[in-house]
């Protein structure tokens, strides 16, 4: 059954968001055409979009978009996957938690980008260094959120499973996994965001491929039209992945209060 009221509200929200973005670019166009905003920082948005269209059809935008996306997805899968696994184990066993926690607490606050020199020296300037860096960035948000998700589960639910004769596997399937899932999905969102940030940053430093490298080239050439056109692509990845995970949350955790609001 389709809920028309919900669909209507959803369409209205979407329409509002789109209208705000269009208005933003229209105002920008207006202010630049009337010379209220001028200079290097403010090219005409219409020209930016022209550049974007040209880059997508004739240029190397799609190729670099693919390169960056592949790095983000690889790092997110490896780092996020390991974070998920360790987070579950730490939430599951107090022994593992007590053992690993001091190490995690010590490393977690370090800005991960600051580790780049060490990683480069250890693994060289290649694809593996990039993936390792992105994985480290993806690992921590996933770990912290998964751990928090397992720990916040009401202990009564474990007692219910025990009272009904559930095995360890049953407890995992019926309590630990579904109970922590909303938090795991939040972890995934933050982890993906971190992956994208690190990926762009590293590409700026390494400078041979990817959207970060394109941004760097635009910057050094002082070609802001070009920079803005790349920024639009980066924003679309960010917004797109967020929307995808919000959808997944709605589908996977229909029982959670957040699912109906977000």
């Amino acid at each position, binding site marked *: 059954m389709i809920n028309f009221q919900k669909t209507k509200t959803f369409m209205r929200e979407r329409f509002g968001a789109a209208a705000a973005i269009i208005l933003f670019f229209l105002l920008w166009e207006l202010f630049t055409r009337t010379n209220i905003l001028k200079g290097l920082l403010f090219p005409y948005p219409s020209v930016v979009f022209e550049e974007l269209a040209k880059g997508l059809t004739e240029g190397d935008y799609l190729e670099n978009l693919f390169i960056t996306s592949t790095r983000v997805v690889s790092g997110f899968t490896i780092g996020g996957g390991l974070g998920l696994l360790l987070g579950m184990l730490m939430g599951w066993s107090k022994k593992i938690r007590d053992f690993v926690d001091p190490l995690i607490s010590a490393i977690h606050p370090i800005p991960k980008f600051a580790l780049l020199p060490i990683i480069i020296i250890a693994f060289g300037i290649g694809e593996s260094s990039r993936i390792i860096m992105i994985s480290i960035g993806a690992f921590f948000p996933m770990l912290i959120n998964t751990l928090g998700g397992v720990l916040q589960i*009401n202990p009564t639910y474990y007692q219910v499973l025990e*009272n009904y004769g559930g095995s360890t596997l049953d407890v995992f399937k019926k309590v630990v996994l579904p109970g922590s*899932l909303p938090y795991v999905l939040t972890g995934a969102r933050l982890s993906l965001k971190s992956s994208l940030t690190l990926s762009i940053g590293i590409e700026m430093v390494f400078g041979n491929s990817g959207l970060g490298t394109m941004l760097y080239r635009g910057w050094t050439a002082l070609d802001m039209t070009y920079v803005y056109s790349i920024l639009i692509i980066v924003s679309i990845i960010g917004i797109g992945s967020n929307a995808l995970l919000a959808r997944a949350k709605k589908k996977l955790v229909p029982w959670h209060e957040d699912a109906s609001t977000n």
Partner: protein
Amino acid sequence: MTITFNNIVKTFSKSTEKEVSALQDVSFSVNDNEFVSIVGPSGCGKTTLLKILANLETQDSGTITYSNDQVPESRLIFQDQGLLPWLTVLENIGLGLELKGMESKKRDEKVIAFMDRVKLSGFESHYPHELSGGMRQRVALARAFLTDPDILLMDEPFAALDAQTRIILQEELLSIWNKNKKTVFFVTHDIDEAILLADRVIVMTDRPGKIHADINIKLDRPREITVMDNSEFKRIKWEIWNFLEKEVRKELSL
């Protein structure tokens, strides 16, 4: 099957505090299919007694023996939050059967048939947070009865409900129990509830919990709420209250 408690002792110790004695020398026995209510002041170890029976706690000393020498299956019904929020009503009620390995088609048939009896039909795909407190406890009751345990352990199951809903659930519990007789241990603060439902009311003292009185309730069954007008009901009620009032005042003046 008769269940006999022999000198059950349980003490809780928290590292920072002194030891708290929860149960002291609790001995009594319960007959097959007997409905036993346990009343007593807060913290007298009523819940601890249930959790020991449910194997969620272990006594420090003393034994529980079963006349047929088999450890019976017992199901605990919690005051609230006993349902898994991520399972639908259908899945929550079927959980016990699922964990026993019953295949889903047969399970769903049984669940749906029972849902009709506890007036939950039509709510199969609802989640617990979409239900009222009374309906949630019906789900918990259905889940427990469906696995057909030997013992039903109820830990203030209706305490979080409003007064009217509570009366309705009490009557429904009596009606289900009449058709599916089981041994029931029913912990409550509510003296009316304890007498209305039970064959026996066990009155416990303030901490450390000991048995103060063991009262047989000889009111006719099946019972309805109007039994509360009965003079015998009132006599028992004031007898229990006179004792509990003293215990509660003792606790308050500490």
